[in-house]
């Protein structure tokens, strides 16, 4: 089940977007998110639609794959569309019953909200689809390097993230094994109400926790044996370096942002 979620997954293919520096992509995502909150006209949304379509085209990730990621947030989307549709006050009322009014303004609002959410999800999943988790943590570590001056343990946090990513599949396998071992001895995880089912998870969680702690101790020892001593005096095997394509990407971002601001203030 855990393996079905496409948000946060990496899609292996070859494209300019895959080769961009992770810091550029993080910045690009941030710019895109901000721009979505700036847009409030048809032209604004049209511009960001074109921009997003162009990036998806560049990424070589199949559109169907990105759309599949939307399913997970469908309910959230429907709820927010519903609220906007029924509860927006306006002058041009179409239907009205009890506290619900459907107005032209409401329809417009709901439509924009849906587009905004869909674009946001597509835009940010595009980043994870084209960036490996490792590059992402690298990008965060380097991109947020200035926070070290504020005594934020940037290196430690990104090391924790990458170790967590490394151990997710191992722990999923382990959970599976423990579950089967408990089922072989008659444990029942499928029947009963919610509380009973939650209770039946205890015999899985306890061994899982214990074994994770053991793994953590082992890993800490192995890291120490390989001379790990935090981020100080550490060199990098794959240092991040901006290339021309990154500079170009920043330029495109700047133009896009300028256009969105211009649209908002002019119209």
């Amino acid at each position, binding site marked *: 089940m855990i393996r079905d979620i496409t948000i946060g997954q990496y899609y292996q293919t070859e494209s300019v977007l895959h080769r961009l520096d992770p810091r550029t992509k993080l910045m690009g995502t941030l710019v895109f998110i901000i721009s979505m909150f700036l847009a409030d006209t048809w032209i604004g949304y049209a511009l960001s639609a074109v921009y997003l379509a162009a990036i998806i085209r560049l990424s070589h990730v199949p559109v169907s794959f990105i759309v599949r990621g939307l399913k997970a947030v469908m309910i959230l989307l429907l709820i927010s569309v519903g609220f906007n549709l029924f509860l927006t006050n306006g002058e041009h009322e179409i239907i009205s019953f009890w506290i619900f009014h459907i107005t032209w303004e409401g329809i417009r609002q709901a439509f924009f909200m849906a587009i905004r959410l869909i674009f946001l999800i597509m835009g940010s999943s595009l980043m994870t689809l084209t960036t*490996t*988790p*490792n590059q992402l943590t690298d990008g965060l570590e380097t991109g947020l390097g200035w926070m070290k001056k504020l005594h934020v343990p940037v290196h430690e946090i990104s090391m924790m993230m*990458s*170790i967590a*990513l*490394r151990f997710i*599949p*191992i722990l999923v396998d382990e959970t599976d094994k423990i579950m089967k071992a408990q089922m072989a001895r008659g444990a029942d995880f499928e029947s009963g109400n919610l509380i009973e089912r939650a209770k039946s998870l205890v015999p899985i969680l306890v061994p899982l926790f214990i074994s994770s702690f053991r*793994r953590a101790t*082992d*890993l800490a*020892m*192995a*890291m*120490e*044996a*390989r*001379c*790990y*001593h935090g981020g100080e*005096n*550490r*060199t*990098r*095997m*794959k*240092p991040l370096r901006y290339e021309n394509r990154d500079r170009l990407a920043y330029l495109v971002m700047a133009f896009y942002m300028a256009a969105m601001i211009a649209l908002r203030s002019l119209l």
Partner: protein
Amino acid sequence: MGIIKAIKLTYDYIKRDEEGNPDGVKRAVDHVDIDIEAGEFVAVLGHNGSGKSTLAKHMNALLLPTEGTIFIGEKDTSDEDNLWDVRKTAGMVFQNPDNQIIGTVVEEDVGFGPENIGVPTEEIWKRVDESLKAVGMTAYRYHSPNKLSGGQKQRVAIAGVMAMRPKCIVLDEPTAMLDPNGRKEVLRTVRELNRKEHITVVLITHYMEEVIEADRVFVMDDGRIVMEGTPQEVFGRTQEMKDYRLDVPQVTELSWELKQDGLPLSDGILTIDQFVDEIMELYNGGNGRGDAGAVEAPGMETAQR
């Protein structure tokens, strides 16, 4: 002085009761003296709880001696200033392959050690290439460690240690969690490193077959080194090995039993070839004497057991 030298090395574990109060002391390593020369292939043999893993952790300064001293590359491990030198000199490979791989891609994991000791980027790549080649894992460099077999993971772990250019590798039961094929794979790799790259190898194990090709074997029991010598010498003292609850290789055991029953075989036969040669020699020589039947009969009986 050899590359690893321990003088009266002693280590006490403090046992604690449920509230965490000290409750007695367990002596895991007890006045151990060893001296390992550079380039040697040394095996440490012992059953569970004999203190062999504790000894191994001293060779990497993961544990510091309670009493006595241990020198790694002539550096005292209990001196804080020597810590990184010690760990650079003696790399360590652990039992569980999953719990010692940090990287999400094979080549990144191999680069982890050199990154930690501040090797420049180009040099890291060179070392990663060489180490992966040395353990024969170059073809898997872009793979995720999760998709490798146990033996392959352990080879990646060895490459990760090799990339730090140690003089010595300490392997703490590296094959305990592997299937027979994985075990062979890892041992072959270790032997090759010892022969081709002249890396000193300290192999901690409880599998008899793995120590046969070592230059020297230490047998540990209850924290002490109780036997020392070439595999032939050690396994030759079969009765003593049995007293320490250790097995000897099947063929050694068979020839020992035959010898108990009166066949004039030599001590510590380690390989089937050697055993066959000796038996054939006896058979051919015995035929001439005419009383071969009398000698052979008890031997055959034992062999069928």
